[in-house]
């Protein structure tokens, strides 16, 4: 009995930090409508800065002072980020905001390693809370008790702040109707900045308070952000009470899940999240969302099939690509195969995102599932390559069918967060379930059959599959199913009003995209000869997003170009620098801010401008940011 009480208290203590970070994310989202992906990064910087300060400053005053100063210092960094970056993208589609803050996260990951080094840092114990309290023979760290008290205290302070101060009233008003608040004479800019500062302060405080419990390391940002996304999806975005209740719930599920499913405790959290989403898609304490704002893919230039000349040009490009083995060496062919595989991956996400208007932040899950599918079939069942290639992607298909069913119940940022959380769950399973997946060691020795083993043969296979997939998806865009899907993207309500089952259409699109990604993953497993949890990790999901964005999210087939350019650049970059995340993150931020239409989008715009001087209004509308005049 005592053991369960202690386990329960441990869960409550973990909930404190989770609540701080989640409430910060919720507050920021409520007012600015930005889901701040970089929130985990601020949490991590908070921990690092607090570590440095508490090491330098001595005594109890130094420790607690260091924690508070760290939170304030990081809040100041947040203010700078808000003023320099976010102010430029408040009117951009949600996807761009998520991507920009993700780019920031990548940059921070490299920066903290540059500043603090790659090793785990173990911080000081909290003065006054060093010991443990004996509870019927079980030890409870007294610091845990401090955290258990702190959570409700912070909740109370936040409640007072929002209910009893003018600032709180303004924030709540702005959460509901920003323009009206401005029309009553309130300077939104500073309101947004102050809200962002408070949110970041909470995240950094959450990080700083973790140092007596956990080591500080440079991957803690992604771990917390996924948990926080789960918390806000369960609790409801924008609700502080919801963040508190859900933080406690998730922490307790983790604490007790370990007892029930020691290897895959995350399953329990997933099941609860799925149950909540079925009953209340907007979370326990959230409100039903208003119809989504502009989604990526909404375009001013209507899409059309390729003309016969353009078809010839595409065919010519394919033929030229097919001649690569005649003059290129093995390394170039391997790179070429990898690029072809990423074309498959990118067009599958593009189909979901641009055609379906559903920006998935966890698309790598289905790519990776395809890869694991092949690995299981080849290694455990010993099936030949051709069978594995045909059956392996079905694992991606099944994953997409299960997760997609839940994901399409939501849209916009909720969809993005949920897909990310699902992908992370799949990753955790692959990582933790060592007996089946090999865990971090992966599954090795997935080699192609002899007829496909030579680099040139494999390249031709990859290229052929990539071409087929691209053509098939493109044909689907201009099929009745494609029309229906684009209709759900442009107006969900009107689509349903004309008798289309929108959720089913979106679910179907999700499954198609997932299966296609699985095909890419299946080929990838054979290309590398092995499968690792990284094949379904977040960074791969983001790679796909960047490829689509780079090519142009509003185009029909920009993803092909995006994948080629990005992958080639990426391979080259990784060979050139250790700071690839820093460069990549900066690159993402740059695309979002100055280059939001992507390569193909830019080319189309230039071509259009040459054809006719388009009316000024049209180009204005095409810009993501509502500029005056």
């Amino acid at each position: 009995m005592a053991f369960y009480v202690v386990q329960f208290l441990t869960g409550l203590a973990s909930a404190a930090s989770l609540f701080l970070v989640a409430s910060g994310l919720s507050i920021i989202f409520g007012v600015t409508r930005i889901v701040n992906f970089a929130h985990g990064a601020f949490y991590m910087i908070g921990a690092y800065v607090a570590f440095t300060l508490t090491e330098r400053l001595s005594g109890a005053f130094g420790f607690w002072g260091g924690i508070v100063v760290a939170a304030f210092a990081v809040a100041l960094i947040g203010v700078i980020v808000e003023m320099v970056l976010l102010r430029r993208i408040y009117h951009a589609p949600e996807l761009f905001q998520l991507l920009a803050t993700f780019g920031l996260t990548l940059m921070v990951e490299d920066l903290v390693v540059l500043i603090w080094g790659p090793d785990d840092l173990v911080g000081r114990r909290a003065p006054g809370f060093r010991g443990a309290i004996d509870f019927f023979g079980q030890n409870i760290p007294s610091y845990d008790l401090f955290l258990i008290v702190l959570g409700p205290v912070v909740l109370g302070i936040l409640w007072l702040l929002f209910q009893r101060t003018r600032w709180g009233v303004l924030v709540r008003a702005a959460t509901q109707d920003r323009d009206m608040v401005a029309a009553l004479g309130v300077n939104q800019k500073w309101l947004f900045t102050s809200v962002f500062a408070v949110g970041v302060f909470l995240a950094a405080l959450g990080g700083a308070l973790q140092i007596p419990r956990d080591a500080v390391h440079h991957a803690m940002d992604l771990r917390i952000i996924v948990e926080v996304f789960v918390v806000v999806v369960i609790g409801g975005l924008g609700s502080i009470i919801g963040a508190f209740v859900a933080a406690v719930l998730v922490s307790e599920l983790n604490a007790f899940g370990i007892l029930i499913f020691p290897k895959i405790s995350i399953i329990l959290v997933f099941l609860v999240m799925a149950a909540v989403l079925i009953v209340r898609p907007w979370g326990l304490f959230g409100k039903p969302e208003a119809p989504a704002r502009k989604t990526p893919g909404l375009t001013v230039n209507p899409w059309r099939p390729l003309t016969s000349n353009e078809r010839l040009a595409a065919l010519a490009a394919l033929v030229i690509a097919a001649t690569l083995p005649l003059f290129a060496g093995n390394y170039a062919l391997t790179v070429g195969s990898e690029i072809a595989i990423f074309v498959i991956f990118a067009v599958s996400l593009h189909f979901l995102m641009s055609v379906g208007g559903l920006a998935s932040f966890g698309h790598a899950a289905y790519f990776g599932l395809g890869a694991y599918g092949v690995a299981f079939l080849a290694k455990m069942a010993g099936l030949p390559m051709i069978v594995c290639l045909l059956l392996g992607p079905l694992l991606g298909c099944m994953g997409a069918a299960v997760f997609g069913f839940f994901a399409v119940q939501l849209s916009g940022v909720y969809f993005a967060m949920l897909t990310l959380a699902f992908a992370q769950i799949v990753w955790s399973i692959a990582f933790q379930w060592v007996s089946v997946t090999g865990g971090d060691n992966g599954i090795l020795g997935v080699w192609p059959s002899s007829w496909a083993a030579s680099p040139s043969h494999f390249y031709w296979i990859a290229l052929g599959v990539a071409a087929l997939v691209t053509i098939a998806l493109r044909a689907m865009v201009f099929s009745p199913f494609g029309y229906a899907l684009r209709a759900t993207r442009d107006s969900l309500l009107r689509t349903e009003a004309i008798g289309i089952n929108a959720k089913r259409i979106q679910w179907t699109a999700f499954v198609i995209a997932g299966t296609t990604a699985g095909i890419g993953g299946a080929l990838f497993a054979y290309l590398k000869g092995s499968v690792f949890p990284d094949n379904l990790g977040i960074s791969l999901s983001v790679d796909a997003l960047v490829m689509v964005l780079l090519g142009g999210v509003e185009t029909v087939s920009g993803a092909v170009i995006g994948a080629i350019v990005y992958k080639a650049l990426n391979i080259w970059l990784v060979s050139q620098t250790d700071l690839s995340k820093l460069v990549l993150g900066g690159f993402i931020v740059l695309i979002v801010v100055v280059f939001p239409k992507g390569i193909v989008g830019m080319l189309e715009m230039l071509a259009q401008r040459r054809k006719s001087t388009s009316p000024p209004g049209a180009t204005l509308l095409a810009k993501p940011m509502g500029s005056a005049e």
Partner: protein
Amino acid sequence: MKLTVEGLNSHYGPAHILFDIGFEVGAGEVVALLGRNGAGKSTTFRSIVGLVAQRTGRIMFEGKDVSVRPTHEIVREGLGYVPEERRIFTDLTVEENLEVGRQPKRPNAPYWTREKLFALFPNLGEMKNRPGGRMSGGEQQMLTIARTLMGNPSLVLLDEPSEGLSPKIVEQMVDAILTMKKEGVSIVVSEQNLHFARLISDRAYIIERGRICFGGTMAELDARPDIRDAHLSL
């Protein structure tokens, strides 16, 4: 002149909505902007307070050109705006809604306190702690006006205040607007209801398809039944 609008053009994306709108409002005057649904009344107001991003033209308020300033600065100059859709903060109580609108005292404009506003709109005084979402349409309309008055404006843009209200509430609205006028607030009121406009206005402009096609006193408008019939549905 309190407010002078000259050559105002507005666009929503590629659509040109307002064409060279021009009108003026004197200190202490109540001016009606009349027009049918979709004529451009709300867009005119939204453009004046800077809520329509794509706009050109000159908007002089108390001798200052406010056409290039952001919304909150325009409003802080004392130019209050009451939107058509009311846009009450439904999660906030009556008192909190008023708090959002509160701005410091202004030398050249009447000063409104909560007590004064509760005297003007007695219904509101009886439900200080009720959330805006649980009020009737008429009560919400009163709350939007009271909320804007908390900013102590010297001029108020009132967008269709009588829309969708019962005759009894409309009467109260007329009284409230006349009280505001007596206190010295200049008012521009957009209306489809000529009868209502006549009860409160000194002068009127008629807007049709984004263009001003008449301007004059109420008496002058009454003398031109042709214009009235052509541009206003009765």
